[in-house]
């Protein structure tokens, strides 16, 4: 495809450093790559690998003054972008280069209508012959927003996640740029929507002949999009080439590690079913319903919204139940209801024969000891002002009769070791840890009281793939050693495949399919389950190449 010998964009010897607590840290070192006209280059890497920083340099949107370009050149055609004065540099953005981002809700300005924001690009680069208004509607139509005449006056919060990303794309494509940088454009979206967006990008590329620089951590996305790929690790490029070739013969150990996630995700081997599946169930949930009352208090009619609709399941001791669903499916509400963070409208949840939804006082307290929760957001779920020791000991302090205070410190150290961290970390603050490490801390906290059941609400969703795998491995390990049960809530089917014994698929507050994991993956009966499965699948050519290379 790329026959033009001169690249559209050439990055050479890029070095970027950042100011941090520990002085200046180099975030990107000697990074270089070319993008040809009309081609799609994928930068694969995990968070902190420097992939987004590189894109920021190209777009001149690096965080300043913390970030600084120390060396290197970025050439667009014949122009050295880094040498341009700011005004001239800015004139290129939006016109020749454009960018879309991971989280369109926060990357769209909440205060302006989407039509205004799209037209803004056109107004900034006032081009004769283009009527901003008409062009806006045209663009919205093209990216598949229904009723664009009306909806151009809507604000970002009034759209769904997928539609917002479409709006982003419309905005980026307003002036038919030569290069579109897409920074994790589908990561925050539900899997089914992900695929639609990727398809849209491909179509548009075919129409306009633009180049795409796609930044992702997700192999399946890379596999769908890439002509060529580079793999980044700790600020350096460790691998460059056509993606099929990389998949077939990875040269860097890290690439191999990355690729090895594929078979693991697809394997049907789990952490070994626990033998204690007999006897009375640990938790028996029957016909849970939860209504939310929307609209203002006081005046007016309160509208009821059903978040849970007759949900029921049985959890045996020592087993793992995966709850899968997209946003709005009610899966998080289920977790919050079971944790007694919210009330229910009707239904029962029997734990050890008692309805936990009616527990009060000391009985509730005993229940809280035995059931713990791990939250999705490893950054939000730890109080930023507390040292790790205090965080881990908080449950002990809340239930002071379990362990005498002088043993807390040892217990905390023991727990940290259990989740693979060092006891020396006890006096640190949460911000000194990475996302994966924080999630381990959250798990250590959940383990402090020797619970019988841990509810994980999207506990690995915010983590990089390789970290995801590590955390799941840790959970599986804990389950083996401690005989724990888990309710594992996620939007990502493949993640639970290796871990869950049974799976519950939820949609719109109701269970659409439930069953044994192997059966469900092998023979999904509900169309929604099938959709979910196919959307997140890795293309066959890639799995084969990977399997071949590893074998």
């Amino acid at each position, binding site marked *: 495809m790329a026959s033009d010998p001169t690249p559209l964009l050439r990055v050479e010897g890029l070095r970027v450093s950042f100011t941090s607590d520990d002085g200046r840290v180099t975030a990107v070192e000697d990074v270089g790559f070319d993008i040809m006209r009309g081609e799609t280059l994928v930068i694969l890497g995990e968070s902190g690998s420097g992939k987004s920083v590189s894109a920021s340099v190209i*777009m001149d949107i690096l965080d300043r003054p913390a970030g600084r370009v120390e060396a290197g050149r970025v050439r667009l055609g014949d122009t050295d972008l880094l040498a341009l004065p*700011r005004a001239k540099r*800015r004139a290129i*953005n939006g016109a020749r280069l454009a960018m879309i981002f991971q989280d369109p809700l926060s990357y769209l*300005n*909440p205060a*302006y*209508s989407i039509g205004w924001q799209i037209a*803004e690009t056109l107004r900034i680069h006032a081009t004769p012959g283009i009527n901003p208004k008409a062009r806006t509607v045209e663009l919205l139509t093209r990216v598949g927003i229904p009723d664009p005449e009306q909806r151009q006056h809507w604000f970002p919060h009034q759209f769904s996640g997928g539609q917002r990303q479409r709006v982003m794309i419309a905005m980026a494509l307003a002036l038919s740029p030569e290069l579109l940088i897409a920074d994790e454009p589908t990561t925050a979206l539900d899997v089914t929507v992900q695929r639609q967006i990727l398809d849209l990008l491909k179509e548009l590329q075919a129409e306009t002949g633009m180049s795409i620089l796609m930044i992702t951590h997700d192999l399946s996305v890379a596999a769908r999009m890439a002509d060529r790929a580079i793999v980044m690790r700790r600020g350096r490029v460790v691998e460059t080439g056509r993606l099929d070739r990389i998949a077939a013969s990875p040269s860097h150990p890290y690439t191999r590690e990355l690729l090895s996630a594929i078979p693991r995700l697809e394997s049907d081997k789990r952490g070994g079913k626990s033998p204690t599946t007999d006897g009375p169930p640990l938790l028996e949930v029957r016909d849970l319903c939860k209504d939310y009352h929307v609209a*203002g208090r006081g005046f007016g009619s309160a509208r009821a919204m059903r978040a849970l609709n007759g949900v029921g399941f049985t959890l045996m001791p020592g087993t793992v139940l995966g709850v899968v669903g997209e946003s709005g499916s009610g899966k998080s509400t289920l977790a919050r209801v079971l944790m007694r963070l919210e009330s229910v409208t009707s239904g029962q949840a029997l734990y050890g024969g008692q309805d936990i939804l009616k527990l009060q006082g000391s009985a509730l307290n005993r229940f809280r000891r035995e059931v713990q929760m791990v939250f999705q957001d490893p950054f939000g779920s730890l109080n930023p002002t507390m040292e790790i020791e205090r965080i881990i000991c908080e449950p002990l302090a809340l239930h002071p009769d379990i362990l005498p205070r002088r043993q807390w410190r040892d217990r905390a150290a023991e727990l940290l070791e259990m989740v693979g961290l060092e006891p020396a970390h006890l006096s640190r603050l949460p911000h000194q840890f990475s996302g994966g490490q924080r999630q381990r801390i959250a798990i250590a906290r959940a383990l402090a009281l020797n619970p019988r059941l841990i509810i994980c609400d999207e506990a690995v969703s915010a983590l990089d793939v390789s970290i995801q795998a590590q955390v799941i491995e840790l959970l599986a390990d804990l389950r083996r050693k401690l005989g724990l049960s888990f309710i594992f809530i996620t939007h990502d089917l493949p993640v639970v495949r290796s871990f869950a014994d049974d799976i519950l698929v939820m949609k719109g507050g109701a269970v659409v399919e439930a069953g044994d994991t192997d059966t469900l993956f092998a023979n999904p009966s509900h169309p929604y389950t099938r959709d979910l499965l196919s959307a997140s699948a890795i293309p066959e050519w890639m799995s084969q190449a990977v399997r071949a290379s590893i074998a």
Partner: protein
Amino acid sequence: MAIFRRSFLTLVSLLVLLILVFFLSRLTGDPSYLFLPVNATPEARAAFAQANGFDQPLVTQFITYVQNMLTGDFGTSLRQQRPAIDIALEAFPITLKLAGVTLAIAIAGALVMGSLAAWKPRGLVDRTVGLTSLAGASAPDFWVAITLVLIFSVSLGILPTSGMGGIAYWILPVIVLGLRPFGLLVQVVRGAMIAALSSPYVKTARAKGASETRVIFVHALRNSMLPVITVAGDIAASLMNGAVIVETIFGWPGIGGVMINAILQRDFAVIQATILVTAIAILILNIVVDLLYGVLDPRVRAA
């Protein structure tokens, strides 16, 4: 909907306020000492109390007050011997004008300076603005006012000392009155702008090719307005109660001076009338602020 609810609740607090003012202000002493000559006899005081209804039980007085209020009679000023509400309504527009202009200038100044300060934290603008706002917060306004009069009017002779009139007459009062609001607002703007400038949509704007000016004043500023409006609303409310020092020093007959004098004179009808007027103004202001939230942030509008 929320607005109605809010207005209703504010009306309740208005009522509570009036009751409190009525009863508590009568606890501050017998006005006859202030209105009768120092050699007045006890009989003369009794006659005075009777003529003004102060001899009645407080509750009876309050009922009479409310009854009269419903017929549009807000009481008569002891000092000026004319309807108290006239006195309040004469003074209020002046306060409103002065406060309005001052606040508008302070907000505009704070938006520009605060944005520039946030654009380069610890830069020259930031440090200057920080120092100014601190000085504004800690310098007593009567001191600033008189010092400015001495410098600009007496020593330099370029501005009138006081009084109401053309633009020149506005400069000193607006500076003195605006110093503290500016200092407060500039910090709020700075804080909000630092957050806004590091928010993702600013990157989007830059990626679109927007100039830094556009990024600051079109994208970030609009989103920094909510806290600014909140604080500006609070400031406006306190200015509604009058800018006593500025009003008295510069001879602007605003409601603050009227209220203070009425309090010191135990002129109860005027105290009640002025507080009623300012409280209603604050009520309206709060509603306007709520509406502004909606205008500035479409997400609030939807809720």
